[in-house]
């Protein structure tokens, strides 16, 4: 197995996530992009774990999954409450606080 292929894929996924976060306006889509970035990290962790022949990278990816799940709970709670208030989940509409 050549780890660099997986690392390149992980970097691409991470970049897609980061770019998506910056260009998309819907809070849910932006948040999904963050999840994509976390999963790109998971891929990198598992790849390195395999390359080193150690297990802790794979265990780490479980930790990351649990953390991501907890983050979804909190994030969706906030996004839904904003949506119910404003009837919009666009991050451009949340613009009362500035400068």
């Amino acid at each position, binding site marked *: 197995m050549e780890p660099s292929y997986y*690392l390149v894929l*992980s970097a691409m996924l*991470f970049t897609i*996530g*980061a770019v998506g*976060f910056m260009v998309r306006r819907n*809070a849910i889509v*932006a*948040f999904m992009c*963050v999840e994509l*970035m*976390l999963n*790109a*990290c998971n891929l*990198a*962790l598992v*790849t*390195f774990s395999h*390359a*080193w022949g*150690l297990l*802790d*990278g794979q265990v*780490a990816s479980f*930790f*990351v999954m649990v*953390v991501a799940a*907890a*983050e979804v709970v*909190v*994030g969706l*709670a*906030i*996004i839904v*409450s*904003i949506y*119910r*208030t*404003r*009837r919009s989940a666009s*991050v451009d*509409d*949340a*613009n*009362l*606080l*500035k*400068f």
Partner: protein
Amino acid sequence: MEITPPSLEYARLMPLIVVFAGACLGVLVEAVTPRSARWPVQVGLTFLTLLVAGALTVSGWSAGDVGISALGSVAVDLPTYFVWTALLVLGALSLLLFTERRLNGGVSAFAPQAAAVPGSVDEELAIRARTEHSEVYPLALFSLFGMMLFAAAGDLLVMFVALEILSLPLYLVCALARRRRLLSQEAGLKYFLLGALASAFFLYGVAMLYGYAGSFDLAALDAAISAGQQSTWLLLVGMAGVSIGLLFKVAAVPFHSWTPDVYTGAPTAVTAFMASCTKIAAVAALLRVFYVGLGGLRWDWQPLMALLAVLTMAVGALLAITQTDVKRMLAYSSITHAGFMLTAVTGASLSSGARDLSSVGATLFYLVAYGAASVGAFAVVTLIRDRNGEASSLDDWAGLGRRHPWLAGAFSVFMLSFAGIPLTSGFIAKVSVFESAWSGGYAWLVVVGVVLSLLAAYFYLRVIVTLFFAEPRPRAAAVTADAGTAGPDVGPSSGAEPAGGATAEAAEPGTGALSLATRRDDAAASAEETSVTSTASRPELGAGEVGVGRAGVATYAAVAVAVALTVVFGLVPGPLLELALQASVFLR
């Protein structure tokens, strides 16, 4: 096959365990206690937890029980004990602000029902039923647990998990303000989205550093850097990712843009908690990662850190000068102070003599001085009110010092400490961070820092001048009158109210964006007052009048303790400096 069970140093980790157990018990209390008893039970449980954890920390510290614990994932050393004690004390001070109910007419400053849409019938019913979210206490304890773990993590994976444990409850409590709920929800959304992005960068950095070192352990990372057998790219990308995550939490400049919005929108008690405790935990973790894990790369990151320190100090100070809102100004001041702390981090100097603070010691002292003053300053912000809640516009504060000399005096002490005027703890703190940057060979950075601290002193002193010497200006009464009439028909679509918005903006030029929200909030507050004022002990303030709200004993106690800490550490810094001096080296 033989499996050896891991051995945990339970006694040494007890402060962490106690805070976590207290938070879990708090969740249980929510489930089993009747609604009327929840608030006092939660308050009692929270402060009992903090007391026990504090006692355990101090006893462990005085017994010198240090060591790398929990299989290398938690490093309990002297800096950790220093940070834990600071977190528990300042956390308790900010939680005192959480308990304040008298200011709001007998209810807490948190939303009666977070799930209800602001201005809706549901919310009105919740207000009438006087429901409260006592969940804020377990949330704050979970966050405090995350901070304690974050500052002590000896392992990058534990650090990532701790980062999330400290952040997730904060995202929620930020969105829970009783008044100005739109602003509060917006603060929660911004903090959440940007925080999640920053932690994704942190995690990518962790993955790259794991690829470089083959271990999450900071000491193993250091050893791998010394051996230098892997690709430098992995190391550099990893360092960049991890620094982005940490500098976001510290609020250093390219990653600071969340700070003013979140600090302004969050309930002020929560802002006090974030400004003091999150800053302490984040800077302590930054120090640990850069000194223990990436110490071998010092020559690579020092110039970059120096640049960030200059940018952070300059941007924070320059933007703070332009602010007209006290809470927002304090947020920019928090950015500036992050810059001053980064000067010490850049220096990376070791203690060279018996009376010489290392970078770690100087930064820790700075964190305590800054944290105490900022809890106190935000406590004062909660006290200065008009009939609709907090009045944090600087114009509203004009001449307040003549009517309320004690409170204005306390606020001036905090401002003087922020500005670094002698006889306050801020002065000693600034001198020690500059000294450690100087002995680390960054004399030019010290010169820049001194110039920028003069610039920063300008806006702190301006607040004092406004408090004591400015004439109180009559507020634009049109806004309040307008809000009164617009009360009933304020719907969820506050963004599109052209006519009303135009009047408000005409009345208050310069606060255009905020006035819409304030107006909405005025409307909500006036609706609330009809149901609450009958039993409230609120002082009778006129329509445009600003005064000091009648608060419970807890808020005054927090202000008094913060003043005491600021002045005592300024006049007699010896004991704290001694502790910081001892806590100058991380255990590897």
